[in-house]
Every structure is written in structure tokens, then in C-alpha cells.
């Protein structure tokens, strides 16, 4: 898993204080006792794949901010020893209000972390409670201040649409409260009820507890319009940024830049092969093994280029498709995209095709039709 070009580095921290009601990510609470063993495993793997140039680092979870002081000092000295970090590298850490302390923020800054992603989800406490979050909006404000004071100049705030009990009004409240803080970046996600989560049971018992499809669709439209007005441009289905402060690391995923994933269950894309590390914590800490390894075919690459590229507001272009897959495929695809322009789901600017809001809302249906 060595790459000559610069790659993106993802590190997974699977620990949480408490698992949220909607969460189906690879994370668990009550295993904090093995945090340090886990760090050893991360260092083991980072060392193994060292020697590469890294353009961005993203530490995701779980709750990366819940691990004790000293964790990231160690982690980053290992990264810096083994990798060449580009000078302008974007280094993000996901932090949850309620677990972030001033001391930790200082450590992050010292380690070189220059972007924090704060999982707020809602600025209404009752909604936070429904979600099973451990913090209040007040807690979030404190965390936000701590981050700023520590000198973090690039902050993302996560927001959720479709929470049980949420209304268009309460969503606007959340949006206004967040906008007042002027974070550089906002991610606004429509809730997905995932199988096996407490929300899935809740949905089975009482689907009416959740805002219906029509309401969530309007929430989405409202959010886009509201954020545009406040100076946040949408650059992906769920992502908005001020002054071009997009998340470079995530944009890399959508543009199919190679990435190296370190840690439990982490995925990598190296040499058009997708790997996934085992999801068994004990076995992972013992030795590195992979749950899957899939060499992508040309068809896979085409499908990924379309499905990922069209997540971006800028969409995909004839020229890009032609350079990657040749004139035939580019022409064929563009002709099909043209139909969605006619039907009002897409727009185009010269040879570039992209979804409008209506199209984003039904993008799965359209993307599935576009699959090879």
C-alpha cells in the first residue's frame, strides 16, 4: 500500500463516551481501557506504511476528542517521523462538545491540528436529548470558545435535519444560532435511520415520530437557502463553506484521490484497490489484518467517478470523463446527463453537469440509473 503521489491519511478512533441513538459507525463506549494499546497498534501500522507524502490528515471516529491527553502528541510525532506532511496540509480532528477541554485543544494545536469538526447536530437541547447526545447547546458554545482560544482558525459544525420532534422552525433556530458564530464550514445532514440502531426500533414502533419525507425535503431546501444568504456556499450534498474553506480531505474522497486508512475498520484506496481493515478490535490490536481487498475494475471506476463526482456541486465534466475514460464513455455519459437537465434535475455550464437542489434530493434514483 505505497503510493508515489501525495495521499490523504485517515485515522480512525473508535472510542465514544456513549453511543448515540442514530449511530451505526464503528464505535463503542466502555472500552477506554484499551486506548493506549490501540495507540500502539496505530503506531505499528503508521510505521509499516511510512515513507509517503501526505496532503491531508483526518482523524475521525467515534469521538477522537474523548481520548486522554498525550494521545495526539504521540500519534503526531509518529506521523511526522514516518511521513512527509506537505506544508499546507489540512489536519482535521472530529471533536464532540462535552469531551473537549482547554488542555486538549492546546495539545491539538501543538500537534499541528489546524481544523476542528464539532459534532453539534442541533442547537435545541430537547433534540440533542432525543439524539442521545451527551452535551447541551451551552456545552457546545464552551467548546467552540475553547477551540477558538486555542487558535483553531478553521472550524466545522455538524447539523442534522429530520430529528424526531424537529420542525422547520426549530431547524431555523439551530441554523441562526450556528450562523451567529461564523464557523468556516457547516455540514448539514439529513438523518438516515440505520438498521440496528435505537432509532430503527423507534421508527418501527412509530414512524410518525420522525418528520416525514416532505418535511425533511423542505428542511433541506430551507437550509441551503438560509446558508447561501449567510455566505455559505454549498459545495457538496451536505457541505457548506465560507470563503472557499471547503474540507480538502473530504473533497479528495469525491475526486477519488488515493487515501490511506489507519485504524480499526479504516478504508484505503491505493492503486485503484480498496482495502478495509478488520472491524474486530481485539484481533486488530494483536495484528493488522484486512476484512476485504477489492481491485477495482474499469466499470467500478466509472461508477465511482459518476456517483462521487455528482455529489459535488461542481459536478462532473466531459473533459474530465474523457481524460479518465476516453471519448466514448464521456460522450455517452454526457448524453444521458443531458436528459436530466431537460427534466429539471440538473444544470450545466459548458461541458460541466451538476445537480440542482431538486436533483440532489432524488440523487440516488438518478445515480442508480447512471450506473454501468
Amino acid at each position, binding site marked *: 500500500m505505497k503510493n508515489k503521489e501525495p495521499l490523504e491519511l485517515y485515522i480512525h478512533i473508535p472510542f465514544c463516551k456513549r453511543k448515540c441513538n442514530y449511530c451505526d459507525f464503528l464505535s463503542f463506549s466502555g472500552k477506554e481501557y484499551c486506548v493506549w494499546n490501540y495507540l500502539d497498534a496505530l503506531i505499528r501500522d503508521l510505521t509499516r506504511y511510512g515513507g509517503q507524502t501526505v496532503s491531508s490528515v483526518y482523524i475521525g471516529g467515534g469521538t477522537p476528542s474523548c481520548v486522554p491527553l498525550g494521545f495526539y502528541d504521540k500519534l503526531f510525532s509518529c506521523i511526522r517521523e514516518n511521513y512527509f506532511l506537505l506544508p499546507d496540509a489540512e489536519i482535521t480532528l472530529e471533536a464532540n462538545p462535552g469531551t473537549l477541554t482547554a488542555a486538549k485543544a492546546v495539545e491539538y494545536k501543538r500537534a499541528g491540528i489546524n481544523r476542528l469538526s464539532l459534532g453539534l447536530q442541533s442547537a435545541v437541547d430537547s433534540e440533542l436529548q432525543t439524539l442521545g447526545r451527551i452535551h447541551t447547546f451551552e456545552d457546545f458554545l464552551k467548546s467552540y470558545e475553547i477551540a477558538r482560544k486555542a487558535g483553531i482558525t478553521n472550524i466545522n459544525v455538524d447539523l442534522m435535519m429530520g430529528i424526531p420532534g424537529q420542525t422547520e422552525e426549530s431547524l431555523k433556530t439551530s441554523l441562526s444560532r450556528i450562523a451567529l458564530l461564523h464557523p468556516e464550514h457547516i455540514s448539514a445532514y*439529513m438523518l438516515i435511520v440505520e438498521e440496528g440502531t435505537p432509532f430503527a426500533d423507534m421508527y418501527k414502533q412509530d414512524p410518525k415520530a420522525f418528520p416525514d419525507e416532505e418535511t425533511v425535503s423542505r428542511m433541506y431546501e430551507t437550509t441551503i437557502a438560509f446558508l447561501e444568504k449567510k455566505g455559505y456556499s454549498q459545495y457538496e450534498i451536505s457541505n457548506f463553506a465560507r470563503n472557499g474553506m471547503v474540507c480538502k480531505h473530504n473533497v479528495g474522497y469525491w475526486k477519488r484521490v488515493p487515501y490511506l486508512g489507519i485504524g480499526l475498520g479504516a478504508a484505503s484506496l491505493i492503486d485503484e484497490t480498496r482495502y478495509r481493515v478488520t472491524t474486530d478490535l481485539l484481533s486488530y490490536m494483536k495484528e493488522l489484518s484486512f476484512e476485504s481487498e477489492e481491485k477495482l475494475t474499469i466499470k*467500478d471506476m466509472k461508477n465511482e467517478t459518476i456517483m462521487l463526482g455528482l455529489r459535488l456541486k461542481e459536478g462532473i465534466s466531459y473533459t474530465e470523463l474523457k481524460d479518465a475514460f476516453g471519448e466514448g464513455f464521456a460522450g455517452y455519459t454526457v448524453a444521458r446527463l443531458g436528459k436530466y437537465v431537460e427534466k429539471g434535475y440538473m444544470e450545466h455550464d459548458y461541458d460541466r453537469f451538476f445537480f440542482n437542489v431538486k436533483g440532489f434530493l*432524488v440523487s440516488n434514483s438518478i445515480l442508480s440509473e447512471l450506473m454501468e
Partner: protein
Amino acid sequence: MALTDQSKIRNFCIIAHIDHGKSTLADRIIEKTGLLTSREMQEQVLDNMDLERERGITIKAQTVRTIYKAKDGQEYIFNLIDTPGHVDFNYEVSRSLAACEGAVLVVDAAQGIEAQTLANCYMAIDHDLEIMPVINKIDLPSAEPERVIAEIEDVIGIEAQDAPRISAKLGLNIEDVLEGIVAKIPAPKGDREKPLQALIFDSVYDPYKGVIIFVRVKEGCITKDTRIRMMATGCEEDIVEIGTFGPGKFIPCDELPAGTVGYITASLKNVKDTRVGDTVTDARRPAAEPLPGYKKVNPMVYCGMYPADGAKYPDLRDALEKLQLNDASLQYEPETSIALGFGFRCGFLGLLHLEIIEERLEREYNLDLVTTAPSVIYKIYKTDGTCEDISNPANMPDPTEIAHMEEPFVSAEIMVTTEFVGPIMKLCQERRGVYLGMEYMEQTRALLKYELPLNEIIYDFFDALKSRSKGYASFDYDLKGYVPSRLVKLDILINHEEVDALSFIVHEDSAYERGRRICERMKDEIPRHLFEIPIQAAIGNKIIARETVKAMRKDVLAKCYGGDITRKKKLLEKQKEGKKRMRQIGNVEIPQAAFMSVLKLDEE
């Protein structure tokens, strides 16, 4: 052992209502007569199709010859001719009965007489068979053998006091049945010197032997040198092999004299040449008359069968061809549908027959099928004085050309415990039944007589009957004839396009209700599209019902980062595959299941 001593032969069948234990008793008889050890017995030897065993009913008549050493020290040949167990196969039953001298009537000691017990019993009496009642399932806690015996004497009017009380399941008192067969069922008559008359009561196709015909020799004698002639079809052939039926296998022999039951193979390639009920005679010395009772069986129910994958059309044709070899009552001819492509219009004896063929095609031939709503044959009298038989709604002429139409009616007998008489009468009324009368069989049970339009019972009448009587009603019917009727063709329009595969012919009074239900059903079955889809039911240009599949508003994956890509890609590819399997009507994709959903409309 010689075949010639008529006095030592017993040809008999077992008749029973479904589930009263016919096949189990047949197994026991075969077991006790000693040709098979218990270990060799596969459960229910006679029902040899997987499907038959699963459904617990007999579809094809099966025959077996066993030898029984009776208490009088003599050995007797038992030819047990098993009969199909469903009203759809009535004619086959009647031919099987004609091959016997007696019938063992199995009655469940708990349930007593049911509609089919009666129907089969009357049929056996019509064929002058000696009826030997047997009370089965005496091991059940709810068994009341004395009550059931009294019932048999009252209702059927035959002596039943000394009927063996048995449990076929436990093998209890089976000896009594065997001795009863020897004592009560007459030996066959018939003169081996007379010109040959042999009744065909079944035929099967064997890939190695070709067509195998099952016969009961009534007069004369078949030898290997006989040149046979089918009296109805006129087909003539030289015999390749003759023989008798061992359990699960054929045993060749040299001659089949009058009174015996056996099989003939000749170089026959087509089962159609050997119609059940036809008489086999000697071409060199033909009989003057065929045996009575032959009739050509005609399908009563038709439907379109289409391969889910259009490329499988040749496979479907081959499969139907093969099935027809074993089942002369199955008919098919090619047809095309705008919605479903190339397929076949198939004719069946009844809905069960249809379901069985459908299941066999899917299981034995691995085909994925889409079937259209079943239809009966309507007679359409046109203004120009001609009459047309229509089984496919798509062929219905323009209403202006129709003078009047007729639909087939059946006489139905429904036996039900008195507490359910009300719900069952209501059901029959809903299905346009004409009430003929009711007889009390005893205090708690009644026999309802109705005339019902066939097209009302081919959908889900059995299911409705079962659910509304908690399973206590039983049902039997006979085609009565054609009756003038106000019928209309109901079309279903999806996104303003008529879907030919969903059209059907229905009585004017049921049209609105049926149309409304189909629209509701289709609404549930058709997935949301990017646009709104109106679903309409129409008679001619008049829309009588409408539903709408709302446009898809939201179908989006909010999060898709490095770890989600593989899963997400597979999801989209699967979604695409799912769409491929749907039928495209205009720009609407309709799942296969939607075409089937119109068949089941009785859910309240």
C-alpha cells in the same frame, strides 16, 4: 403367479376427502401386502411428485399391483388405482373409477363426511362400484367413529356398521381393510375371448419408453403381438412392451387378459394420441363399440404465462412441451403482450391445475414466470350473427360489435358447519351466486347449493371460503353451462397507457369494486418514480377508479466518505439491477409482483 384367475383379482380405488388419509392408507396397504418392507417404504409411495407430497394431494393417478395372502390361505392380486384428489381433476377421477369394481371410502373419524366425500362417493355409485367404508384416524382424541358411521348410513345410505375402524397413520387394524377388500369387493368379470376393449385411465411420458398408457382390460386380451388402435383418435401402433405395476416400477409380462390392470408402451410420441377415457382395441379384430363415458376434457381456466426474462421464451416453450407430454389436459399457444412480450396462453382444468403447472415450471424447469389474471371462456355473440369464444381479454371485440355475451356457470355444493352458513352465504352472494337450497346433513352441518359464475371462483374463492369458515367449509363444483351475462372489459391504465396484461373481463356490477381494488393494489406495488403516476381503471373510455403513485421527493444519501464508498456503490448497482427486472410500460417500471397482485383481491 398366474394373472388369469379372475376370481383372485381385486381392482379398487380409495376415495376420500382431502386430508382424510387416502395416501397414508394406500401406503399401509402396500406395506402390509408385503411387497415392500417398512424400511423401503418412502412415506406416501403413491404421491411420487415432490409437489404432490408437499401439497398432500394427488395430481396424477397412480397405480400399483400387490399380492395379498388372505386369511383363507389364498393369494389375491390387488390392483390399487389411486385417484387424483381434487375437483379440478374430476374427469380423471371418473376414469379411474371406471377401471375398478370397488372403492374403499375413507372417512375421517373426527370430521365425518365432507363435500368431496359425497361427490366422489356419488361418482363411484354412478359407476356401479361396491363401496366399502373405512373409518380412519380413530387415534385422534376427537374421533367419534360411531357418529360418523351413523352419518355414512344416513347421508350416503350404505351399510357401515362393520366398517373397519383404523388408524392408517399408526397402522392400526389395516388387516380388517385387506380382508374387507377380499370379501366385499367383487372380482372382475370379462371374457378373454371377446374382441379387445381396454379403458385408458391415465398416461405418462417416459423419456426412454415414450408414452406409457395405463389400461384396464375389460374384454379380450392384450398380448405383445397385438396391434392396438385407439378408438377415439384412430391412432394405431404395434406394442413394444406390456406389463403390470410394481411399487414404483414397471414389471413387464406377456399378456393382459380381461379383468387385469396394466400398462402398454408402443412407439407413441405424443400423449395427445392416448386420451384418458379412450378405448384400446385390437386393430386386427376390433370391438364393435368403444367403452362408454369417453369425453374430451377441455380447459376451463386460461391465463397468459410469460417468462420474467424475455430471453427465456424458448425455455418456457420447451418446458410446456415436456409438461404436456405428461398432462394432456394442459393446453398452450403462443401469444404476445405489449407489456410482457412473448409468452403463452395456457388452458387449465381449474385454478389448482394452473397453480400446479406454474409451480412445476418454476421448480422443475427453473423458470421465473409472470402470469396474467386467469380468465374463463366467454361466448361472445356478435351483431353479425357469429359467436366467438374468448379467453384473452385482449381479443375482446369492440363493444359495438357485440350483441350479447355469455359466461360459464357451475353448480356448487358447499358443506359447512351451521355456524358459518351466514358468512358463506354472504360470500356466495358477493360472488354473484344464485342460491338453490340448503340441506341439513345433521344438526350441525349443512350442504349449501349454489350456482356460481366460474369467473368468480377462479380467483381466490377457495382461500376466501377457508378464511371465512375457519377452514371448516369444503367445496365441490361441476360445470353447468353458459348463461347470458352483462360483462365488460376492464382496462388498467398506468400513466395513461393501457397495460394489456392487466385487462380482464368482469361482470358489470363487480367492475367498479374490482377496478378500485386493483388500482389500490397497483399503487402499493409500483415504486415511486421521479414523476407522479396515475393508475386508472377504465371501461371503454370511462374511468371508474383512480389512484396516484406520488412522485419521489427524497432519495439521497446524506453521508458518503472514504469508508462508505464500496457499500454505497453496491447499493446503487443493486438498485439498478432491480430496475432491470421490472417491466417497462411507457416510462414506468412495474415490478413483476404487480402483475400477480391482481390475482389476490379478497383481502379485507
